């Protein structure tokens, strides 16, 4: 029943070493991988020929990706492009029609402990009778194990994590009494407490205040600087170059992926948004963002 993955595998051990991670702009320019089977086995995440469909309607086609380690990676694309679905398929939350997902060279199911997940904030009922600290502690439940109670040690760990996102003062608040930005930070803290190697975050900047956005991106950059890989579904094209090292342009297929500098071009964006990125779309996007605040 316990599915604790073995972090002792050599690939993981290698990535745990303290080798300094090159800053984003100095990263070697990688080209969009051509189709083929040359997947690197110690990539934090490699996706092979993933196809996902809802009720026979394909949502993702032939996604084939290797993600580099220690980068901050954005998944960008229009509404309905399958950004969230990509993450959910990787995390085995929606079934794949075909395809294979490897985390550090092994099937995801055996590597769960290395993978942290921050779902969309709206995906849960914030009226649930628990405190912020309770929610963050949930990130440790798997390590605590079946039937064992949550002890002081784990609560302290959760407290530390809350501290890291500037929410220590709100630890004992019921979660509905937190603002949207604070709730997002609690979710982030819950993922951090797990001490994963690769994190997936579904729109962590949706509906949060400016201060929280800055705080979250700083935390993600810290993770990156420590060598972790962070994959973020992102909606705001304007902040992509500022926040991220790598970008995956997605519209049912991977249009392009690689370092922001080389891939995040007008031409690729045009391809991703299919000419739909008119002024009106941009305005609608701006409105969506403003409305979320």
């Amino acid at each position, binding site marked *: *029943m316990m*599915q*604790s993955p073995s972090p002792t595998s050599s690939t993981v051990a290698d990535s745990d070493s303290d080798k300094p991670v090159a800053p984003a702009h100095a990263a070697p320019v990688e080209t969009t991988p051509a189709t083929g089977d040359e997947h690197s086995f110690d990539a934090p995440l490699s996706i092979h020929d993933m196809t996902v469909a809802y*009720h026979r309607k394909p949502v993702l086609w032939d996604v084939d990706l290797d993600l580099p380690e220690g980068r901050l990676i954005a998944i960008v694309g229009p509404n309905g492009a399958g950004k969230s679905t990509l993450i*959910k398929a990787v*995390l*085995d*939350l929606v079934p794949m029609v075909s395809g294979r997902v490897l985390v550090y060279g092994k099937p995801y*199911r055996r590597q*769960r*402990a290395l*993978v942290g*997940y921050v*779902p969309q904030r709206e*995906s*849960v*009922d914030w009226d*649930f*009778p*628990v*405190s912020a600290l*309770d*929610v963050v502690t*949930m990130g440790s*439940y*798997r390590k*605590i194990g*079946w*039937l064992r*109670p*949550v002890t002081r040690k784990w609560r302290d760990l959760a407290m530390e994590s809350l501290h890291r996102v500037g929410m220590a003062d709100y630890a004992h608040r*019921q979660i509905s009494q937190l603002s949207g930005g604070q709730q997002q930070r609690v979710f982030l803290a*819950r993922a951090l407490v797990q001490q994963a190697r690769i994190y997936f975050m579904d729109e962590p900047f949706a509906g949060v205040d400016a201060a929280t956005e800055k705080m979250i991106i700083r935390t993600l950059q810290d993770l990156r600087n420590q060598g972790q890989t962070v994959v973020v579904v992102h909606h705001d094209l304007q902040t992509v170059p500022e926040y991220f090292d790598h970008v995956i342009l997605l519209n049912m297929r991977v249009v392009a992926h690689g370092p922001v500098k080389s891939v995040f071009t007008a031409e690729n964006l045009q391809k991703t948004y299919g000419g739909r990125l008119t002024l009106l779309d941009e305005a609608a996007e701006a409105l969506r963002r403003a409305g979320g605040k």
Partner: protein
Amino acid sequence: MILSHLLFSSLGQITTDLLLRVLFLDDYNTRVVVLGVMVLGLAGGVVGGYMLLRKHALLGDALSHSTLPGIAAAFMVMASFGGSGKSLPGLLLGATITGSAGVGCVMLIRRYTRLKEDAALGIVLSVFFGFGIVLMGFVQRMKAGSAAGIETFIYGKTAAMLASDAQLIALVALICVGLCALLYKELKILSFDPAYTATQGWPVLLLDGLMMAMVIGVTVVGLQAVGLILVIAMLIIPAASARFWTHRLGRMLVLSAVIGALSGWMGASISALLPRMPAGAIIVMVAAGAFVISLFFGQQRGVVARWVRYVQLQRQVGLQNLLRTCFELVETRQLQHDEDGHPRIPFNMLLEAKSWSPRYLRRLLKRADHDELLNTLPQAVIELTDTGMVEARRQAREHRLWELYLITHADIAASHVDRGADMIEHVLGTEMVLQLEKLLEQQSHPVVPATPHRI
């Protein structure tokens, strides 16, 4: 209790003595029944708490209605094999089978069609229940066995309960409460965030199945006592009531268990005294009483508690606005002062300053007078007291510090500040004011910065 007293005096048959005997479990048979239902209420409270939070409340309703064909079919099978057909374990087994099948159908419909959950629930509930009624029709016509008493499963009849039935309830209740205690943390994370729970490697399907099994267990053993139409109430009402009192899951579950047990105890006791009253209905009425009390008086989310908090904030805001306006008038107008330098402000001047109605302003002034912040003089003039002046100065100062903060640190146009500031400044704590002073490099008390916009 009052209700029962009224009913009894009108019946004029039952003595207070008997009432006390029943309520305090003197009689062996009553004791068995009442204890059984009480334990059922307790388990229903705990299991229902999780069910409610997992948002499966209506699934429980579909489940209980789906037990009817099982009961009828079990009777027919047992009777055709020569028994009386009324062996309780056999009937409950039948109920469990079709109840589980009902839940399974809901799951399948939701999984493989585009119908939404509410439609799936409606279909399963009515089809299974209708099928049950049809089977009941056949049962009534069967020659073998005596069908009398089978229909008690629809409305429930505690009097029919035997000691062995109560023991069965107690056993199921013990298992459920034990599992909920052991799996407290697992069920908590599952109910809060099932998708995340799955990514963490917990077997969500197994945990969900376990939770559903507990709901089925409580429902099936509760059928005889409460009836299949109302058994859902024992799962939902105590849990929903408990939620009004606390924001903590553990406390909520304990409270839910207590409310469930009390409802079961009182409901079963009362129904034991009223021969023709179905226990299920009385139990639900008692639980509904607990729910109404919780709805109004619940400490955390009760209507009264929230109303009181709202009124208090309104009062505070009103008074602070009044004082600030007084300060602004003192600052900008030529006012008369008394010999000790207390400013006098005409009522009409205050009325013009803000969009207050005369009635509201008079009420504000009365309250401020009562708090000794000002004195109401004849000829519609008020005079600030020493305390009033200090308070007014403080209010104006905090208001302006907040406005300055918003302008300098939050990129908000000055013309829009007043409204935003109005909302938050009323709840600024001392520490926040100190922070504001530091941020804005303002001298501390008593300098009031100039207002950043026209008053």
